[in-house]
């Protein structure tokens, strides 16, 4: 090993070598095991002079780190892959966003169409039994009741039952007011219902008593 190279190594260890020389020597250092061993001993000498604890030659720590890193994927490859992923993500994200939005819109349209078709079927189904009913009244058959358009609304009586069941959490006066409000509301609803609703009530009545 030549003296000039060792002198450069010593200066590089101290961070006193010009950058251009550092580049070349770093390359050699990473490949030359003898040079690396000397570099390691320079570190040991410094640590000994500073009386640092646990100073060893061929310390386990460096060997252990080396062993772990030998099994690690190359960070240059990882870096390039990450960059590529980032590059891909840059155009994939907006396209994916548009795709998702288009998909949601298409599903909404399909759902709305199917709902419209269902309504037509229900209307037809409701209309048909009325005819069948009149023609086959004597067959003892019955018609499945049409789903009520108000089914999503909780009936006032059900709410009143709920209030009574949970009466322990309300004062008697409040409970009474609430119950009377439900009853008034139920009456009001029935009273203000429009003609079509009345018509449907009639149809339901027909469905309830098909034999009449």
């Amino acid at each position: 090993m030549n003296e000039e190279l060792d002198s450069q190594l010593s200066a590089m260890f101290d961070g006193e070598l010009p950058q251009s020389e550092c580049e070349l020597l770093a390359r050699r250092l990473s490949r030359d095991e003898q040079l690396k061993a000397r570099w390691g001993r320079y570190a040991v000498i410094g640590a000994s002079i500073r009386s640092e604890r646990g100073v060893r030659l061929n310390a386990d720590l460096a060997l252990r780190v080396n062993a772990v890193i030998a099994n690690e994927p190359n960070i240059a490859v990882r870096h390039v892959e990450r960059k590529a992923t980032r590059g891909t993500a840059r155009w994939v994200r907006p396209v994916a966003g548009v795709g998702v939005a288009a998909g949601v819109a298409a599903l909404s349209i399909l759902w709305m169409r199917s709902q419209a078709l269902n309504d037509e079927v229900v209307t037809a189904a409701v209309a048909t039994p009325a005819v069948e009913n009149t023609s086959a009244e004597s067959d003892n058959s019955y018609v499945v009741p049409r789903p009520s358009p108000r089914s999503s609304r909780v009936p006032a009586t059900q709410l009143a039952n709920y209030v009574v069941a949970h009466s322990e959490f309300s004062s008697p006066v409040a409970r009474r007011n609430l119950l009377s409000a439900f009853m008034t509301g139920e009456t009001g609803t029935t009273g203000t219902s429009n003609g079509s609703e009345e018509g449907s009530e009639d149809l339901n009545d027909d469905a309830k008593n098909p034999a009449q």
Partner: protein
Amino acid sequence: MSADVSDLSLVRRVQRGDKGAFDALVLKYQHKLVKLVMRYVRNPAEAEDIAQEAFIKAYRALPQFRGDSAFYTWLYRIAINSAKNAVVSRDRSPIDYELDRHNPDESYDMQGRMKDSETPEGLVMTDEIRSTVNAAIEALPEDLRTAIVLRELEGLSYEEIAAAMDCPVGTVRSRIFRAREAIDRRLREVFEGGLGRAEELG
């Protein structure tokens, strides 16, 4: 000029996929890092484990290192965080808690032992290296000895040493190199010949 330049050359090589360059960084900073971690944990074996973890974390994070700060400053922060995390998780350990609660004397004794749980072989090795290096330094001509001590113990730059010793920077570089070579020669003689030769040679 600072250590940043040479470290950065090695770091750039690692970032380009040269694992051997990282080995050089580990060899250079392992003692400093263990010493740093031992401010948080007293057990040398635990300190080495934490330092190892810090090096591996640093390696994995190296693609994100841009060189805005010095490599050692960055590594230092990683090691400090690893040491703090290790202390926190050790403090939460139910085994430690049980020891403290049931037998305070035993726990005190454990802590005492943890402070100096270096293996006998390790202690012999450290002493052997230290005595070899000290003997080699004593044997150096005064100008070489002053140069290496100012560099390693006081951390002065070549320019500062040149000013202190009233000589050109090139001479300082040469003196430090020659001092290292003389000490290194003695170290190799001792460790290639086996332990226990330090006294014979000294």
